[in-house]
């Protein structure tokens, strides 16, 4: 699959300067809420360490825990299915829906089903799938994809939501009030909940020890979606497992605080077996995850609990929008996960990073995000997937930096040019550093010159 490079896609987003700033501000607002929550708990760092180690422990014994989970879930009356890849996952969902004679399905947010492109697959089979998270529904009606894993419609303005709802839900034209629009969605989606034959949800956490699963939402859409129909299908990546129910205390304390700056999601629902007279199907999906386990450098990315904190803080994500990544999971974590599936298609993503390390600082499970991104850059180079526009300048720079006189000479030329060349000779297409920003002011003296003056002064003083 040919995926456009991140800089190309981002340039479309930043072309609208005002919108890019608005997007940046909206996410920074969420990041600040997260900070307030993090400092409200003196044990925050202890929780992060515990979460990180619990996840690593689980990965180190994943096969055992998966078997234990299957056994316990089955005991509770759930049916456990296994899918190697997205095609198999979609086929399992389809066969369950066919068995139930389902025509209408309600679905709560699930990045896994996005990853598997479940909606278009089911729609092609004549099944209506309604996303019930408000942000997801907005995006679905606009025939777009989510641009953020927790805030799927963060890139859309209320005026645009109003237009979309006017077209699809017959709301008043020009009424942009979020309360009014949410009320319209509430009434529209209630009809869908009541008419649904099957409810599909993602899974935030599954518990090996009990065979249960946990789904967290603020809207209650997952719960409404699965407590009216007779069938609940829960789709989860195999990395969602935790060993014990008590481990959830750590993760539920971290998840919402990191994601949106709330003390906990409004609903944190624990499903243990189907409700009487109903069916619960759990699909365990690998889709490349087991391969990632074996990689020393990238195994850490399996700890991710999909809170989105790394996106909210990322200076590149905030200014380039989620769609510029061209993947289901965007931002720092997405830039690690996507190349692990297909490094050629997503080779530009690890470079969509300033290596500022902010993502690593906020990650509730201590994924070493910026280190992994740097590691990926080397990996992409070793795989021969870097474009000449990167390899040639790197080679030249390396050659120049190995020769002190050349480095001095080029530095002097650079300083001279910055000071004396006309604007048009510096700011043009060949200098990407001059795009949308001013080049630094050239200092009168280089560091080397300052150092020499300082040293000679010291010598004469002695």
């Amino acid at each position, binding site marked *: 699959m040919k995926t456009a490079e991140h800089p190309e896609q981002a340039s479309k987003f930043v072309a609208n300067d005002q919108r890019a700033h608005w997007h940046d501000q909206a996410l920074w607002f969420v990041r600040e809420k997260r900070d307030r929550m993090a400092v409200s708990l003196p044990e925050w760092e202890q929780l992060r360490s515990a979460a990180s180690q619990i996840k690593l422990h689980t990965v180190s014994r994943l096969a055992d825990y998966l078997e234990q989970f299957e056994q316990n879930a089955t005991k509770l009356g759930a049916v456990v299915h296994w899918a190697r890849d997205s095609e*198999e996952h979609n086929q399992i969902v389809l066969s369950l829906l066919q068995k139930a004679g389902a025509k209408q399905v309600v679905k709560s947010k699930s990045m896994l089903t996005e990853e598997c492109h479940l909606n278009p697959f089911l729609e092609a089979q004549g099944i209506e799938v309604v996303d019930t998270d408000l942000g997801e529904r907005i995006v679905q009606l606009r025939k777009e994809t989510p641009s953020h894993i927790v805030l799927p419609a963060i890139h859309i303005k209320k005026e645009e939501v109003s237009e979309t709802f006017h077209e699809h839900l017959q709301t008043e034209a020009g009424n942009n009030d979020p309360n009014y629009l949410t009320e319209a969605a509430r009434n529209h989606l209630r009809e869908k909940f009541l008419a649904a034959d099957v409810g599909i949800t993602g899974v935030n956490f599954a518990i090996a020890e009990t065979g*249960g699963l946990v789904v967290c939402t603020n809207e209650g859409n997952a719960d409404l979606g699965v407590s009216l129909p007779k069938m609940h299908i829960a789709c989860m990546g195999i990395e969602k497992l935790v060993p014990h129910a008590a481990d959830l*205390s750590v993760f539920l304390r971290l998840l919402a605080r990191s994601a949106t700056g709330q003390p906990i999601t409004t609903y944190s629902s624990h499903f243990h077996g189907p409700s009487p007279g109903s069916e619960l199907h759990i699909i365990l999906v690998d889709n490349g995850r087991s391969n990632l386990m074996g990689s020393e450098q990238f195994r850490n990315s399996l700890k991710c609990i999909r809170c989105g904190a790394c996106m909210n803080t990322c200076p590149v994500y905030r200014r380039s929008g989620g769609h510029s990544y061209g993947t289901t999971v965007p931002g720092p974590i997405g830039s690690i996960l996507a190349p692990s599936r297909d490094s050629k298609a997503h080779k530009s993503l690890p470079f969509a990073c300033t290596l500022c390390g902010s993502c690593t600082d906020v990650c509730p499970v201590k994924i070493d995000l910026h280190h992994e991104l740097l590691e990926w850059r080397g990996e992409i180079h070793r795989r021969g997937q870097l474009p000449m526009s990167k390899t040639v300048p790197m080679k030249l720079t390396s050659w120049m930096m190995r020769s002190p006189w050349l480095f001095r000479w080029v530095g002097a030329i650079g300083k001279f040019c910055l000071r004396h060349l006309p604007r048009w000779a510096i700011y043009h297409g060949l200098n990407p550093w001059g795009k949308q920003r001013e080049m630094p002011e050239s200092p009168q003296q280089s560091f080397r010159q300052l150092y020499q003056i300082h040293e000679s002064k010291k010598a004469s003083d002695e």
Partner: protein
Amino acid sequence: MSSRDQILKSIRNQVVASVDHPGLAGDWIRYDDRVAHFATVLTAVGGAAHVVDSAEEITAELSRVPAFAHASKIVSLCDQISGNVDFDAIDDPHALEDVDFAVLPAQFAVAENGAVWVDDAAVKHRVIYFIPQHLSFIVRSPTHVADAIVDNMHQAYERISLGEPQFGTFVSGPSKTADIEQSLVIGAHGARSLNVFFLRQ
């Protein structure tokens, strides 16, 4: 080979260093006044908490809530409050779609995040936690109100036992969304309001 066996084999083929479980012992946060902290957090997430000494006080408080006073269909699963829907006689949960107000028992509350824990052990249709327009929980506490509130989530998981075929959920405030330009809107799909009563008796 089945997909199950292939996935398990693929996992077992990876060389992953063994990592111990860290254990969950910790000096987790505690509050001097759990009742006050719970009320503050619940208010911040859009709900309200009340400490009362009798069922009459609950009725009096609820009658001040317009959504209760004007409700035509009320489900109550608490002896203290009378509803007008025979919940257990309903077979199809879809019949609950027009419930205006529900008064339901909750097991205990959590101070750190303003949540209450509820399960469906004695509740025929779990949808009753999500489908009513407005919701109130009653947490009974035989001695001190503070006994019905734990400090943090670690203590919460010590109180609940999972593993039986059952549904349980932590509910913290009314249903909400901020999906339209980050504007907080209360009442997305579930309850538009949430009152928690701590009943000393």
